[in-house]
């Protein structure tokens, strides 16, 4: 599905800008669920379509905001990113890594066979 354009989406500088209005259909919900690797039943897809549209309708009001020239937030704290030294300080404990694994063997994790 494509975004429905109302007026001109690129005219962000306009205070009259009304942005794009989107809603999802059940097929979109199924596609997104697939992308998120969550199996959904028909009922769930139906219900979630309504819920998602309710939320998307709610967030639609952001289109009222004039964000022309505004930088998106990258971090709420303005500090320099901490860095680590290039020293091996961790690892060397495979048993701890697989300790909680549903299925493991010889410290490998086991998963249903992946075909490439």
């Amino acid at each position, binding site marked *: 599905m*494509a*975004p429905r354009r109302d007026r001109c*989406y690129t005219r962000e500088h306009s205070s009259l800008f009304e*942005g*794009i209005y*989107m809603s*999802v259909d059940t097929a*979109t*919900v199924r596609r*997104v*669920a*697939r*992308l*998120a*690797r*969550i*199996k*959904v039943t028909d009922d*769930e897809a139906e219900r*979630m379509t309504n*819920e*998602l549209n*309710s*939320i*998307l309708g*709610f*967030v*639609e*009001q*952001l*289109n*009222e*905001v004039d*964000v022309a020239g*505004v*930088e*998106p*937030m*990258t*971090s*709420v*704290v303005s*500090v320099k*990113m*901490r860095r*680590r030294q290039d020293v091996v300080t961790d690892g060397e404990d495979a048993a*701890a*890594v*697989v*300790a*909680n*694994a*549903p*299925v493991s063997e010889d410290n490998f*994790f086991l*998963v*249903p*066979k*992946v*075909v490439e």
Partner: protein
Amino acid sequence: MTDLTSLTLAEARDALKAKTFTAVELTDAYLAAMEAARGLNAYVVETPEIARDMAKASDARLAAGQAGPLEGLPLGIKDLYATKGVHTQACSHILDRFKPVYESTVSANLWADGAVMLGKLNMDEFAMGSSNETSHYGPVVNPWRRKGSDVKLVPGGSSGGSAAAVAGRLCLGATATDTGGSIRQPAAFTGTVGIKPTYGRCSRWGLVAFASSLDQAGPIARDVRDAAILLKSMASVDPRDTTSVDLPVPDYEAAVGKSVKGLRIGIPKEYRLDGMPAEIDALWRRGIDILREAGAEIVDISLPHTKYALPAYYIVAPAEASSNLARYDGVRYGLRVPGSDIIDMYENTRAAGFGAEVKRRILIGTYVLSAGYYDAYYLRAQKVRTLIKRDFELAYAAGVDAILTPATPSAAFGIGEKADADPVEMYLNDVFTVTVNMAGLPGIAVPAGLSAEGLPLGLQLIGRPFDEETLFTLGAAIEKAAGTFSPAKWW
């Protein structure tokens, strides 16, 4: 002897130092209270053996004069915190039987200061919720009830177990986390004090992530002083968390009881919502009066982008969550539901492991980040977030020291009352608190009165970045005038 659980954390601390009773006695009193209160469902796991062992060790240190700041004080830990060798599931089925081999920085700080762990506290699944009804372990019951009613109420969320346990005296204090209001809203619903410190003040290392740019740890406590004592121990500079800020941790307790004279308190007009219950408005006015009478200067301010904080939050938080929760795939830990192939295994596992609210947010987050929608949703929301933060910066630059608002738009509601409602209606619980997360600021919720139905109502104070001290000072001033609030024991 009086019931040991009636003491505040500060009182218990002093009594332990004075050897009025032992840490083991105090711990046993709480373990007994927890047992008697299982109907509240505040704890998902009780750890009596660990608690007694820690208390014994505390007694030894107390005897040796080596007591830490929290020596022998029994606390509850939100299930979002990784606790070594102990159930840690963020109250989700997908982390079924997960026992981390590591301890979160914040809980480790508490243990290093001598605190005693009573158990893991109930919460909304992955901290997604405002009523503690999304927990895989069932809802928490608020120790408060409406006057003359036995309808079970929610304690708020997501730190519902923490708030209920503190209000019900099932621990001296509790750890909690706040992504959009998850400390302050339940604190307000239970008549307790909760502070969400500045983003970067407490380490996020070992906290099960919900929305990384918003999540922050903080305490829920019985009064302002207790909250100050707990935050002092929880906060630290952690080299393992890139977003942890390299600033010394002040003595927050020293800020309690200081004069508020001359402090400028901003009252943002945008927080006066249409249709806001009259008693919330009255509570806010009462807060204003209290602070004015105590010598603070009250000024009207404007935070024009306030109304966009909640919709922006419901893009940013689910987007981050959809990615943060991708690791729950049945491969390395937690639940695995078999499937015909790897993708089927993923889909079955995640379908069975996540509850409805978590799925909803993962889907919203996945959708807003997906090809073609990123700019319209995520990027725009992050720009709006910049504007929200700028609103606060301008207010503070104009000389405001802190901002006073209601904590919640209502008192606690009944369990199941909003079950069939539109999800957005539940989200509106966070309308006053979420701005603070979006701007990374500190915010404290302090009880300031009771509703007509006899339920606690809270006020929120929002501070400058890393100025938690002023919040404790102001919170204590409100508390001094309004008093503290405890539910009558019925459970």
